[in-house]
């Protein structure tokens, strides 16, 4: 999806987002809740199915840190379109996991400094590119046509040695295998899928960003992850796992 089309739909009041080598940054105006004045938010993300290498991870971290330093409590929208971490020897040599962790820590710091953080998967989200962006937000959303996955079923079949047709069949009934936002919704990884008026969705999401990580509880309520929350509860309470 073309990011400018998306930005126009999200921000009818105006935006100042620019692209530099698949890196998106800028600001936008978002209506306040219940007729309150519009607020300026920070917009940070990637486009064109960007592979996340060391440079673009660092650029996103810089934008987050700058927002924290210059604009206390300004809300941040993370726009996600990535094919995952860049698969190059150079990135590994330079320690790409450190760059991605740095980005994740900067987002976490912003959250703790009172910035509402909302993620939006507007096109594609894959593994390492997703885990330090949208999945670090207070709440992550997706458009209905978004693709979210760890890797494609053919590659998964090779590595797990499970035949692809078996995986394809299982993916129909089990959200752990199939790409697609509805599976991540059921597992609690997404707060909601946005249909209709995107401007209204983003305004509401920024206003109502949840505090704390309730994804395992959501996954349990929605039936997509039936054991994560009971296991967490059992350990936190030193009891036994209640699966009933």
């Amino acid at each position, binding site marked *: 999806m073309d990011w400018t089309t998306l930005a126009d739909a999200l921000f009818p009041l105006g935006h100042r987002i620019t692209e530099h080598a698949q890196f998106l940054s800028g600001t936008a105006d978002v209506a306040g809740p219940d007729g309150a004045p519009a607020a300026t938010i920070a917009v940070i993300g990637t486009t064109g199915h960007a592979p996340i290498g060391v440079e673009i991870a660092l650029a996103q971290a810089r934008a987050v840190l700058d927002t924290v330093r210059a604009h206390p409590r300004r809300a941040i929208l993370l726009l996600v379109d990535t094919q995952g971490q860049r698969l190059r020897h150079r990135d590994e040599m330079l320690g790409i996991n450190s760059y991605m962790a740095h980005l994740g820590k900067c987002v976490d710091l912003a959250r703790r400094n009172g910035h509402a953080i909302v993620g939006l998967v507007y096109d594609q989200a894959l593994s390492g590119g997703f885990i330090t962006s949208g999945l670090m937000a207070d709440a992550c959303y997706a458009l209905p046509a978004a693709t979210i996955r760890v890797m494609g079923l053919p590659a998964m079949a090779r590595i797990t040695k499970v035949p692809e047709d078996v995986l394809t069949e299982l993916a129909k009934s089990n959200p752990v295998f199939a790409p697609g936002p509805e599976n991540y919704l059921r597992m609690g990884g997404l707060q909601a899928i946005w249909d209709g008026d995107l401007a209204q969705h983003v305004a509401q999401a920024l206003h109502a960003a949840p505090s704390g990580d309730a994804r*395992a509880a959501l996954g349990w309520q929605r039936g997509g992850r039936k054991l994560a929350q009971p296991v967490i509860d*059992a350990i936190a309470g030193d009891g036994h796992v209640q699966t009933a």
Partner: protein
Amino acid sequence: MRSYLESTARERLQHVLDAGSFEEFIGPAQRIVSPHLAQLNAPVAFDDGVAVGRATLDGQPVFAAAQEGGFMGGAVGEVHGAKLTGLLRRALAERPAAVLLLLETGGVRLHEANAGLIAVSEVMRAVLDVREAGIPVLVLVGGSNGAFGGMGIVARCANAIVMSEEARLAMSGPEVIETANGVEEFDSRDRALVWRTTGGKHRYLLGDCQAIVPDTVAAFRAAAIATLAALGAGPAALSVDALEREHAMLAERIARFGAMRDPLEIWRALGVPAPERVPLLEIDAFIAAAAAHRLGES
């Protein structure tokens, strides 16, 4: 001397922590297994490949987790990840002196891919919650599967990492990179190159791990005690200043080394004497040779 690399997760816990002190939370007797593996006819483990609990280390109360590389490469599935997250959340209430994560993992378990990805992200946020509460998190890496994928990111969210020279810490495995971009991009069978790129000595020189030890459980224990003592002097939580320093370090790394093709060139640029001999050095000699040249904060 007992090898850390060759020990199981439970042996590591037994010998790194004070003898007999480890008390496991929801141990294997409860038989909480992965809900996703059976339909793939894949084997399950009664602990889903990770042991979590509390113990003492040098008399101090700590929480600890150890991933078992022998079960699916230590990969993180729904239950495995929830055990780590549960441990970290319990630490917020019980306030141990530290949390130790003995990582050995390929990252997300592909057999339960989507659940594993969210689980790793929950672990990442829980680690940062523990740090925010003022409790340091220490990662040990020394198993044959290394620490890869999302867990390689989690490792760098901790306060400090201790590695052996045999340990590997990275994001994508060499085989994945070779499959995606060809053998000329990264020859996964060139073990020396793989080691130079992801191994403990390179990470230590770059400043991505804070201590490097020989491959013995006793050495990991001693380093864990010493590193926690050193961490006790500073804040455990993230801060703008600390992240700005990290940012500057990572930006400078690209500027200085971004055009280089092989870690050997980086070691030479750092001024490490006889860089081609680095792989041959015993740990004590290596630490001495690296002392004046390594980057990062220790």
